[in-house]
C-alpha cells in the first residue's frame, strides 16, 4: 500500500530581515513530503534552515510568497499557504502537537494544567480535558507528577510532560524542535523511546529537528539540510508503524 502524504511542501522559501538591509535566506526552495505514520528527522548544521522548515511545516510561519515559483504547502490535502493567522492557530491547536527544546511549559501551571491547556485550546474543557490530560501524563510515565509545577520537575520530566501535552489531542502531526537538546544521554534516550513508542503503537506522525546523529538514526528517515536546501532525503532506517521493527527502540530503551 502506497503511503499517504500528510504534509507536502514545494518551493518553500523564507528570507528573514535582521533589521536594516541585512537579510538571511533561511530557506532557498525546499520540497519535502512527510507521510502518514512516518517518524522523520530534519538534520543539519546550525543555520542550515532546519528550524525554519519546521516552523513552516508547523504553521508557525508562512513561506514567502514572492520569491520565484509559488510555494505550496498541503496538510492533509488542504492548502495552508493562503490561511490567515487565526485559522493556522486553530489547526495548530487541534491537529498538531509541539515539543520544544526547553522552556516548554507554562511555569505557573502544574504539569496537569499544562497538558489541559492544550485541550482547552482545542476546545475540550472540564472533566473531559482532565481525563484526557491524566491519561496523557500516564502514558509518558508522569501519572504521579501531575500536581507539580515545572520547577519541581527534572529536565527529562519536563520534556515528557511536554510530550504528553503534544499528544493529548491525538494530533495528526507532532513536531519536536531539539526535544533532547538539553538532556543527558540517558534522559534523551528515554524521551526518544517514548516518541518512538507512540509512532509504532499509534502510528503517530512525528517530525524531529535535531543535530544529534543518534536521534536521526532512530528515525525512519532523515531529511538533511545545508544552506537552506535539502541535501539528502535518504531513509536512515526503515521502520513503519504497520510493520514494527523494534530495533531502534531496543537500541535506546
Amino acid at each position, binding site marked *: 500500500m502506497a503511503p499517504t502524504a500528510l504534509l507536502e511542501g514545494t518551493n518553500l522559501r523564507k528570507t528573514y530581515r535582521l533589521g536594516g538591509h541585512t537579510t538571511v535566506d533561511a530557506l532557498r526552495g525546499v520540497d519535502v513530503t512527510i507521510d502518514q505514520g512516518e517518524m522523520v528527522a530534519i538534520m543539519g548544521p546550525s543555520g542550515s534552515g532546519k528550524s525554519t522548515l519546521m516552523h513552516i511545516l508547523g504553521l508557525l510561519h508562512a513561506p514567502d510568497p514572492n520569491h520565484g515559483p509559488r510555494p505550496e504547502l498541503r496538510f492533509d490535502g488542504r492548502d495552508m499557504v493562503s490561511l490567515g493567522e487565526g485559522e493556522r492557530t486553530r489547526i*495548530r491547536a487541534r491537529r498538531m502537537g509541539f515539543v520544544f527544546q526547553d522552556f516548554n511549559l507554562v511555569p505557573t501551571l502544574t504539569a496537569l494544567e499544562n497538558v489541559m491547556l492544550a485541550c482547552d485550546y482545542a476546545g475540550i474543557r472540564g472533566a473531559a480535558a482532565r481525563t484526557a490530560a491524566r491519561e496523557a501524563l500516564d502514558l509518558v510515565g508522569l501519572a504521579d507528577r501531575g500536581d507539580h509545577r515545572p520547577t519541581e520537575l527534572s529536565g527529562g520530566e519536563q520534556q515528557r510532560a511536554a510530550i504528553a501535552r503534544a499528544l493529548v489531542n491525538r494530533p495528526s502531526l507532532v513536531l519536536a524542535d531539539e526535544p533532547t537538546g538539553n538532556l543527558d544521554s540517558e534522559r534523551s534516550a528515554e524521551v526518544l523511546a517514548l516518541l518512538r513508542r507512540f509512532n509504532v503503537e499509534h502510528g503517530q506522525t512525528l517530525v524531529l529537528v535535531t543535530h544529534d546523529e543518534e536521534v536521526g538514526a532512530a528515525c525512519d528517515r532523515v531529511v538533511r539540510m545545508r544552506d537552506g536546501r535539502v541535501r539528502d532525503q535518504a531513509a536512515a532506517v526503515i521502520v513503519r508503524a504497520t510493520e514494527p521493527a523494534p530495533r531502534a527502540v531496543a537500541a535506546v530503551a
Partner: protein
Amino acid sequence: MTLLRDLGRRKLRTSLTILGITIGIWALVVFGSMANKINALVAGGSEFYTGKVTVSAAGGQMGFGNPLSIDAADRVARLPGVGAVVPGVNMLLSDQMTGVSFGMPQMIEGQVAGADRGRETFTLHYASGRALTSADEGSNVAVLGSDLARQGDTRVSDTITLRGETFRVVGILEPTLTAPDGAAMIPLAAAQRLFVRSLPSLVSAKLDPATVVTGITIYPSPGTTAETVAAEIRAASPDLAVMTGADFDRQIGSATAILNSILVGIALISLAVGGLSVINTMAMSVAERTREIGIKRAIGGGRRRIVRELVTESAVIGFLGGAVGLALGAALVLVVNEAGRSSGTLLFQLTPGTALTAVAFSTVLGAVAGLVPALHAARLDPVAALRYE
C-alpha cells in the same frame, strides 16, 4: 486561579501597582463623598429657597445678619402678588462658633409658627415631639434639628440653654442633611429677645426687641412667581437685600461646581498616575512572560485568548485597587464623620453610587491600561517569542 498565580509571581510589584490604584480610588471616594455632601447641602438649600423670597437688611443675606425693622414686613405685605409674610430672626447659635466651618453653621431660628399660612413647601419631619404652634409665642420652648439634638444627647422635655436662656425641648426633627439639622427653632418673641441682647449695648439700648427681625420670608400668592415678587420688592425697597431660589443657585451653585471639579480633578489625576503604573506593570509582566506567551501561541492559543487573559489580569489589579481604596476611603469618611458628629459637622457623604462608580471605574481603568501591553503580546511572533532571552 491561574490568574492569581500570575499576579502572585511578582508580589511586591503587583502590590505596589494595586497601591497606586488604591490611592487614586481612595482620593476619588473621599473627595467624591465631600462633593456629595456639598451637593446635598446645596440641593437642600436650593429646595429650601425655591418658591419664596427672602429679604434681609442691606448687607445681610439669606434672612440673616443686620437688624431689620419689622415695619419692612408691613411695607412688603402691601405689594401685589404677596401671599404671606413671615418675619423671623436667624442668628448663630453661639458667637464662639466663628471661624471656618464646613457645611451649615448652627443657628437659632425664630418665627411665628403658622405665619406662612401653609405655603412653606419644605416639609420637616419630626423624629419625636411636636412642631411649634402660634400658642407657643411667649414661652421658652424649642424644636431641635437632628444634629443639634444628638450633639447634646437632648430628648423631648429636656431643657437646653440657648444664649443664656433656658428652653424646654418640645420636638426633635428627622435628619434633612441640610440647614435644619443644626437649627434650634424657637418662638419669634424669644428669638427677638436673644438677638437684641446679642447686639452691642449702644445699639440694643435703643431697640425694642418686638420691632426687630433679621429677615422676612415672603411667599407669593398663587399665580405669581417668586421672581416677580422679588422684582416688586427690589423696586419698592431698594434698601433691602432680596434673594430668591434662583439667586441662591447662581451664587452658591456656581461656587460648588468649581469646588466639585477641583475635588474630582484631584482624584482623576491620582487615578491617571495609577493607570500609568498599571500599564507599566503589565508591560513588564508581558516582557517577562514573552517565552511563555510564545509557547501558548505555538500550541494553539489564539491572539484574542492571550489578550483576554492579560486584560482580565490587569482588570483584577484595578478591581483590587478599587476595592481597597473604597474600603480605606469609607473608613476615613466614617471616622471623620463620627469625630465631627459631636460638633454637628458631617464632612462627607458616601453614597452607594459613589462607591459603585469608584470600583467600576478602577476595574475598567485596569482593563484599559492592560490593553496596550496585551495587544503587544498578542502580536508577538510565536517563534521569536520562544527564542526571547
